[in-house]
């Protein structure tokens, strides 16, 4: 037997048979593969945990940040209101006095100061007149703004007060039907409520800032949609998160009771 025959014999006989390995070989392979892939799964999970923790921390941070800001703005608003009601009446009366009555003495000053409440009470009656037909606050603001526009003339022309007030009432009545036809299909003639007592004179600038920080939030297309979504998601009508656009059109996110809820959850 030469070398080639020997090689051929072994090659053919040994490669011709394919013995089955025992099943535990595959089981061991599978276990080892699971072990290696399992470790990567664990790694992914821990990564996810860290990501979730980071998101939670950022969320709490935002909630804590937004809450005080809102509180601050409310406090500022209240303070502004106080300031205005305190300051506006004397200063405006003085300026009108200086403008019109250069040769006033102390008595006249007192007179004007005394007169100040008068138009306010009359204004209220006017407002009552104007509001007889009006239910919506929007319309109230329209009338009140028209009144405030006329108010300076009211203060100055004290003699023609009655007439001008009547005019205002007429003007308010004139405005009201226009609004009513545009916004309200039917008009009801009922007395509903007395408007809250207002300061005599509203400075336009202050009014604007008040509107910016006040409850009247402008809703854009996007923020309105988001509000509806948040309302639908939460049980109460006003969701915990409200969206609004401010005067400059930038986006604002209000989280109501966000901090309190977080604390409750922890307990």
């Amino acid at each position: 037997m030469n070398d080639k025959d020997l090689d051929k014999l072994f090659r053919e006989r040994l490669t011709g048979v394919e013995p089955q390995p025992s099943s535990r070989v595959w089981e061991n392979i599978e276990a080892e593969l699971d072990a290696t892939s399992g470790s990567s799964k664990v790694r992914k999970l821990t990564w996810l945990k860290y990501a979730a923790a980071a998101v939670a921390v950022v969320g709490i941070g935002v909630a804590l940040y937004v809450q005080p800001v809102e509180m601050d703005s409310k406090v500022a608003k209240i303070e502004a209101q106080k300031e205005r009601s305190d300051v506006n009446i004397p200063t405006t009366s003085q300026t009108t006095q200086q403008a019109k009555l250069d040769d006033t003495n102390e008595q006249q000053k007192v007179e004007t100061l005394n007169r100040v409440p008068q138009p306010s009470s009359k204004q209220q009656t006017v407002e009552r007149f104007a509001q007889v037909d009006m239910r919506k606050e929007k319309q109230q603001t329209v009338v009140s703004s028209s009144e405030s526009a006329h108010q300076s003339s009211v203060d100055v022309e004290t003699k023609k007060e009655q007439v001008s007030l009547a005019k205002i009432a007429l003007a308010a009545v004139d405005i009201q039907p226009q609004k009513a036809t545009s916004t309200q299909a039917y008009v009801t003639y009922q007395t509903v409520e007395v408007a809250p007592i207002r300061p005599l004179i509203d400075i336009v600038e202050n009014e604007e800032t008040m509107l910016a920080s006040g409850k009247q939030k402008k809703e854009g297309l996007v923020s309105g949609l988001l509000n509806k979504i948040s309302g639908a998601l939460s049980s109460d009508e006003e969701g915990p998160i409200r969206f609004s656009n401010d005067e400059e059109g930038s986006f604002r996110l209000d989280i109501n009771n966000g901090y309190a809820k977080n604390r409750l959850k922890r307990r």
Partner: protein
Amino acid sequence: MGDRKAQFELYQQFSAKMFGVCLRYAQSSDEAEDILQTGFIKVFSKCKLYDSKGSLEGWIRRIMVNTAIEAHRRNKVAFLESLNEQHHFIETNSGSSDENIHYQDLLRLVTTLPIGYRTVFNMYAIEGYSHKEIAAMLDISEGNSKSQLSRARQWLKDKLVQIENLTS
């Protein structure tokens, strides 16, 4: 790595063939299974390195052979020729001539070869590696590979003659 099902299919396709390879290199059936297991783990973890130029079977077979060599290395086996090794031939019960020698008998012959002889003979005669490749893979010289092959052949011839004499 692909899913487990694909891995199992690959295993199913090649496990028997590769187990045959491992049995030739290993000392025992248990060792052969260990080599097979380690080899397939390598196949699954290195499958991205397969360049699909050669046959997949050839690639897997090469991994198995390498795994077997590594296993021997771990056991501190030198593939250098040692002339003083004692060879214990286990007598077979098969009463057959050359033509009828069974797989098991030939496998037993091969596995009783000294490990250096066995490895070189397997690689050259059965797997078809060149002496150059064998020398590189086993970290020995080409001459050493050649001499071990010729000694292995002589050893096997002697054993075959012994079997024939026993049976005849």
